[in-house]
């Protein structure tokens, strides 16, 4: 299939793997963080680690939108959905995320109407078809999905739809990366930068990572060769003692981002003073709320939202996994009490969650082909 198969070419992967292996200094361990959950998914789905030498460890980052939603917000959403005449719309990934009293699926079994949508715009269709209902869109995601929520709000306003509102849980990636860089328990050598977020915000916001923290960043695409090439670019920077922001995904990511999308976000949303991230705690200026100008569409103002903070179950170590301090399988409950069918933590739910990716795709001892290849050459 064109535009897909080119990026999954095993011969090219073998060639890149050999170049990566050649750049490893003997005896040195490398820790590279892929920030985005989409990358984590690709890495496991295609068995990419098979191509990496043992000395390179990929650390899974916090860029999984579902994973960072704290339990209390899930409870708030279910509370909203159980108000009279409410139809809530949500992306499919959210449906199985456990709140303290169960997931959206469980809530639906109890009588709420939470519908899966593929695009926020579908919520408007539902709002138009059900004028006697109140449609609330459960908005989640990083800067990747925020513009589509923004455009939906702009369209709803233009149409004068009065029965549509947004429960805004959009978060921004840069404060989370900064929190990880400032966290004392982790030493990272470089970052595989989030591709889709960068289509919106561009590459400039990462410059502080290279300049102030001295870590290289390569913004990467989502096909396996994209990621392998980005690892190569990071290793090249490290071997040359450089720390710069580079753009591997230039076919999609403009250096300055997407101004139209950024304007739409600015028009409809504003920064919250602080927001709770699952596992990472409260991070200031790290999330978006509905803009004052759109107050009539802000579900948090229209409805009473309990806003009770719910602590994660004691044994759940999603926070450590999200920060990359623990590998998924090092969590105490991984695979026994916490499985995809009965997830305790969010990382086990989303296809982009590190635990789900490892459990579903990577739960085995792997043979690393790169080393075999190098040994043979």
């Amino acid at each position, binding site marked *: *299939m064109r535009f*897909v198969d080119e990026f*999954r070419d*095993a011969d090219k*992967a073998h060639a890149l793997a050999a170049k990566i292996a050649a750049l490893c200094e003997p005896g040195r361990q490398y820790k590279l963080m892929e920030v985005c959950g*989409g990358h984590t998914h690709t890495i*496991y*789905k*295609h*068995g*990419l680690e*098979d*191509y990496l030498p043992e000395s390179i460890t990929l650390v899974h980052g916090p860029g999984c*939108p*579902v994973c960072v939603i704290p339990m209390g917000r899930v409870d708030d959403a279910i509370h909203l959905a159980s108000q009279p005449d409410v139809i809530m719309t949500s992306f*499919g*990934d959210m*449906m*199985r995320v456990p709140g*303290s*009293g*169960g997931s959206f*699926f*469980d809530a*639906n*079994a*109890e009588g709420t109407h939470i519908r899966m949508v*593929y695009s926020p715009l*579908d919520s408007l269709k539902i709002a138009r078809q059900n004028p006697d209902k109140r449609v609330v869109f459960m908005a*989640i*995601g*990083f800067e990747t*999905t925020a513009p589509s929520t923004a455009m939906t709000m702009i369209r709803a306003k233009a149409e004068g739809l009065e029965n549509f509102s947004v429960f805004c849980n959009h978060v921004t990636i840069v404060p989370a990366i900064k929190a990880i860089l400032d966290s004392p328990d982790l030493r990272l050598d470089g970052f595989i930068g989030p591709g*889709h977020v960068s289509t919106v915000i561009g590459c400039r916001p990462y410059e502080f990572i290279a300049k102030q923290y001295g870590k290289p960043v390569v913004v990467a695409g989502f096909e*396996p060769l994209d990621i392998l090439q980005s690892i190569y670019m990071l290793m090249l920077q490290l071997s040359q003692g450089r720390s710069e922001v580079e753009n591997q995904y230039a076919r999609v990511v403009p250096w300055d981002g997407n101004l139209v999308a950024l304007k739409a976000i600015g028009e409809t949303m504003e920064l919250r003073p602080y927001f709770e991230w699952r596992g990472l705690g409260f991070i200031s200026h790290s999330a978006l709320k509905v803009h004052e100008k759109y107050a009539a569409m802000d579900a948090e103002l229209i409805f009473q939202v309990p806003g009770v903070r719910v602590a994660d*179950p*004691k*044994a759940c170590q999603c926070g450590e996994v999200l920060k990359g301090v623990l590998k998924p*399988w*090092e969590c*105490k*409950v*991984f*695979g*026994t*009490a916490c*499985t*995809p069918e*009965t997830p*305790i933590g969010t990382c086990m739910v989303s*296809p*982009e969650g590190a635990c789900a990716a490892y*459990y*579903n*795709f*990577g*739960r*085995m001892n*792997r043979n690393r*082909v790169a080393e075999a290849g190098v040994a043979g050459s």
Partner: protein
Amino acid sequence: MSKSWIDEALAQSELGHEGLAAEGRRQLPLADREQQVLDRIDRARRRRPKVREERVTMSHGAGGKATQTLIEAVFLDAFRNPLLEPLEDAAQLTVSGARIALTTDSYVVSPLFFPGGDIGDLAVNGTVNDLAVSGARPLYLSAGFILEEGFPVADLQRVTESMRAAAERAGVSVVTGDTKVVQKGKADGCYVNTAGVGVVERDGALGAARAQPGDAIVVSGPIGDHGITIMLARGELDIEADICSDTAPLNGLVADLLDAVPGVRAMRDATRGGVATILNEIARAADVGVLAVEDAIPVRAEVRGASELLGIDPMYVACEGRLVAVVPGEDADRAVAALRAHPLGERAAVIGHVRAEQPGIVQLKTAFGGTRIVDLLVGDPLPRIC
């Protein structure tokens, strides 16, 4: 669901954990610790399944892990008997000396009419196929209808007409039936249930548990056509593609395969849960490992394209006219040739092998050259959001 299940689950895992914690302090090398965790998970997965939810959710109907848990913890628990226990597509029984296969299936597809078929031919073919892959010659079907008040009679006639045509094509007769009507809003138009009986004329038992290391796994054609067709036919995705359902009766194809390779170990039709689910059933039933090769699995470009866009894996998408067969390794070429000689098996291929290593686990050699696990799905394939 209350919070208590979390505590219960935690307590359970603590039990199996003490040994590890003690050893963990000695800080075993990373790879050994990982292996220990893998072993522990393996033990946890072999535990008796338990339904934790207080109510049925949509996941219980999706054909993945939740469905399997529900079947084993509720239905098998209640009805347990040696004929049911193998959980094959059809039960094999002996009645007054005659070997009979019996199966039943309910159809709730939405929309009722879709490119390549409708609920009617699906209801006939699905039951015919369940009988065929269990080695029986399908003979007679029953048909039960649950109709919603207000359902157009013309639509009902369309459904029954395609059932008639499908039965004729498969060489079976619908010999008994039932009709129920429920108030508007209590059902979605029309649900159909069919049961079928067939006669087992060949010697040699079939069953997923008979798979052995060295066996080849064969699929009879491109996978995922039906599921993707239905998803697109719902019109919610604004994607159009030129594909139609593969719904078809497989009894002719099965007969050709069994004539050419009498030693076939097992067959399944790849419906809900797709080929991935069948490979897992084989690995589990026979306690063997399965290694599939992504490049070898036939998938139409349209199906692959739609799956990529939706973030789902065609291996989990339903077919309604494809079978997966386990055959002795030395018979693989003959099996593929026999399937390809039939119009419904033109793109048959060997997609993998059974092996002794990693029993219970299905591994996939990806087109990219890596390896990964192919597990049972928990629920419906959920689309990724970014």
